[in-house]
């Protein structure tokens, strides 16, 4: 009984104990914030990157890509874990948006319906069906019935390359053009590429006229497949019909998406007839750069990979011209594709663990020092308690319990502080940027434009437990010293 009573009394009356309590609180909060933000960033990085590229990627390093991808996808259906696959083309280009913005970009050709089954591209689009219907209702009220109908059609066909507004809206943009510009292809740009931003808040703004921007995309077709034998750049005209926010800053800042067949044709990668020397009419098969594969939920990409590699090898044997040069088609898991970055990120995680260990050692040492001071200061009290009948174990239990109580309260307060900071970290960061001019989180460095603000239960449990154990550990030596004290010497202590 006296142990609990004295622990609570010491906690309330000894201000020095508050120092260790605050130390435990700050250490716990600091580690929680760092682990939540950096750990959250690691998780976000893995999830987002996984979401960008499906479970497995079949690709070759040649700019010409590989052929017979349709047969390949058909064969992949034999793999039990297989769920869906989509071909795509990845190349480089130069974008010109309305003569107002130029940039070197990564160009991705997607079959938007297929790719929606494989990765999270469809979810990254701003114009989701609910937004399109809401916008359609708005236009309906204004009497713009054709635009409202176009918006509803786009919502119904989601995801699609359809333009947001009626064809006349686009014709009016380029009245001098001698072609039906409304037939130009739809293009989707990364959110951070060309959308205007509010100068005060830095937030992306999406006025309707943004989705009436014309876009000219210059790409370089395959040299080997060019009919002239010369490779010249080609311009693909289009309209900006949507923007994609994958949350990976660099992807959203330099990627343009357009229909797979349009890009395939303009890069000379589509199927083409030709005559051999004997005059036989043949077809050069269509090509793609990559095939992204989605596996059934719960499947292990590493388990499915050998079967897929076998299928790819068989097809390459069957069609020696499947790849146009020495680069074979390779199969990679999504994390192998991103291994360079993921390994760096894993090292960062290790650094965090070491940091956490150092912080824990500092906290233990701090508590040890404070408790040692308390025990020295309380030497006479220990003598008094022992003279009234307390055992050595009881005296040790007072100081261990004291450490435990400080650990529990400090870690609890640290958890509360950490929770409040982590869950409001973006607002805090915005306030700091606005009022103090301090910007810690740079989207260009950390890839994402928002700071991760979620806490993992497992992290919380580990951190709080370590904080409490550190407090008890810091109290062990002082508690043992107190327990071993001779009561007479303790009573005479000055």
């Amino acid at each position, binding site marked *: 009984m006296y142990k609990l009573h004295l622990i609570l009394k*010491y906690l309330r009356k000894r201000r020095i104990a508050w120092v260790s309590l605050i130390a435990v609180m700050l250490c716990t909060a600091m580690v929680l914030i760092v682990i939540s933000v950096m750990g959250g960033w690691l998780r976000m990085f893995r999830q987002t990157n996984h979401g960008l590229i499906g479970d497995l990627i079949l690709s070759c390093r040649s700019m010409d890509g590989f052929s017979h991808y349709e047969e390949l996808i058909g064969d992949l259906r034999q793999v039990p874990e297989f769920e869906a696959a989509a071909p795509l083309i990845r190349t480089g280009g130069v974008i010109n948006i309305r003569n107002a913005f130029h940039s070197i970009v990564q160009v991705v050709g997607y079959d938007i319906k297929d790719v929606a089954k494989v990765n999270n591209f469809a979810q990254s689009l701003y114009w989701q069906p609910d937004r399109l219907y809401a916008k359609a209702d708005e236009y309906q009220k204004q009497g713009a019935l054709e635009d409202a109908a176009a918006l509803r059609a786009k919502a119904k066909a989601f995801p699609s390359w359809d333009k947001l507004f009626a064809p006349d809206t686009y014709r009016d943009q380029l009245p001098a053009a001698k072609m039906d510009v409304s037939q130009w292809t739809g293009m989707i740009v990364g959110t951070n590429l060309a959308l205007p931003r509010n100068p005060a808040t830095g937030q992306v703004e999406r006025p309707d006229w943004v989705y009436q921007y014309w876009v000219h995309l210059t790409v370089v077709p395959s040299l080997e497949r060019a009919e002239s034998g010369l490779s010249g750049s080609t311009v693909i005209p289009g309209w900006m019909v949507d923007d994609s926010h994958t949350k990976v800053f660099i992807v959203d800042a330099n990627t343009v998406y357009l229909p797979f067949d349009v890009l395939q044709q303009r890069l000379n990668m589509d199927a083409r007839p030709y005559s051999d020397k004997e005059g036989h009419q043949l077809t050069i098969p269509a090509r793609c750069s990559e095939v992204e594969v989605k596996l059934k939920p719960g499947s292990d990409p590493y388990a499915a990979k050998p079967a897929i590699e076998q299928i790819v090898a068989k097809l390459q044997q069957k069609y020696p011209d499947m790849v146009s040069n020495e680069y074979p088609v390779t199969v990679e898991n999504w994390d192998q594709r991103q291994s360079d970055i993921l390994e760096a990120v894993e090292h960062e995680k290790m650094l965090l663990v070491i940091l956490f260990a150092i912080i824990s050692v500092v906290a233990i040492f701090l508590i040890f020092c404070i408790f040692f001071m308390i025990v020295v200061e309380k030497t*006479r009290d220990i003598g008094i308690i022992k003279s*009234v*009948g307390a055992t050595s174990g009881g005296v040790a239990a007072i100081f261990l319990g004291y450490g435990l109580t400080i650990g529990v309260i400090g870690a609890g307060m640290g958890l509360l502080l950490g929770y409040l900071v982590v869950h409001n970290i973006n607002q805090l960061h915005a306030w700091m940027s606005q009022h103090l001019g301090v910007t810690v989180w740079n989207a260009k460095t950390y890839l994402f434009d928002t700071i991760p603000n979620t806490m993992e239960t497992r992290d919380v449990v580990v951190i709080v437990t370590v904080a409490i154990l550190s407090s008890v550990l810091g109290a062990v030596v002082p508690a043992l010293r107190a327990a071993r004290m001779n*009561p007479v010497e303790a009573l005479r202590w000055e």
Partner: protein
Amino acid sequence: MSSTAFQPARPPALSASVILQASGLRKSFRMGESRLEVLERVDLAVRTGEFVAIEGRSGSGKSTLLHILGALDEYDGGTVIFDGQDISRLGSAQRSALRNRQFGFVFQFYHLLPELNVLENTMLAAMIERSWLNFHGHKAQIKARARELLSELGMDQRLRHRPAQLSGGERQRVAIARALMNQPRVLFADEPTGNLDFDTGRQIMAVLERLHRQGNKTIIMVTHDRSLASQADRILVLQNGVLRPAET
């Protein structure tokens, strides 16, 4: 002032049996290279209900003797028998239990816990004796006992005060109440008035005397003051490490 709180827990023995006995007690301290023999051969027998005063000059070893008799300190040789039991053979926990239930201590410097108030300091021995559940099960009784003791000692108006808010005499009264809380069979008083002025010292001595006379409490008091010692049944003098009866 009623005296119910000072009533002994058990009726005093009909025959005055020896409750505490020391034989051939030796104790020395290391002083650098040499050893200082404080107790060379101490023999003592205290009977139940007896008030024994041990007199001696400062540094004569009387406090050391009291601590040894009260199972607070170790000794080099000899035996200490309490109620037929050799306390040197007891384990640490048993010695703690002895100090908690059978012995009560009153020190010169009061030795109250500064964080606890008067009532809590008084209940300390009961808190140590009992588990959390047991204490809360008997809390009302324990509090009533502590209040009664404090009331007997004239401290009933200061229950919520902390030691720093009390005078020396008041602190010593609280220390006496704490020592009596678990109805000990032997009360050890180490220079109980040594830190008090004359009048307050007399009041404290009056309390001890009342405990002895009305409560038949066995008291062993050490003092350097012959006038205080003379209030005891028997005076012993500790000199040169040996205890002998005082010359009248």
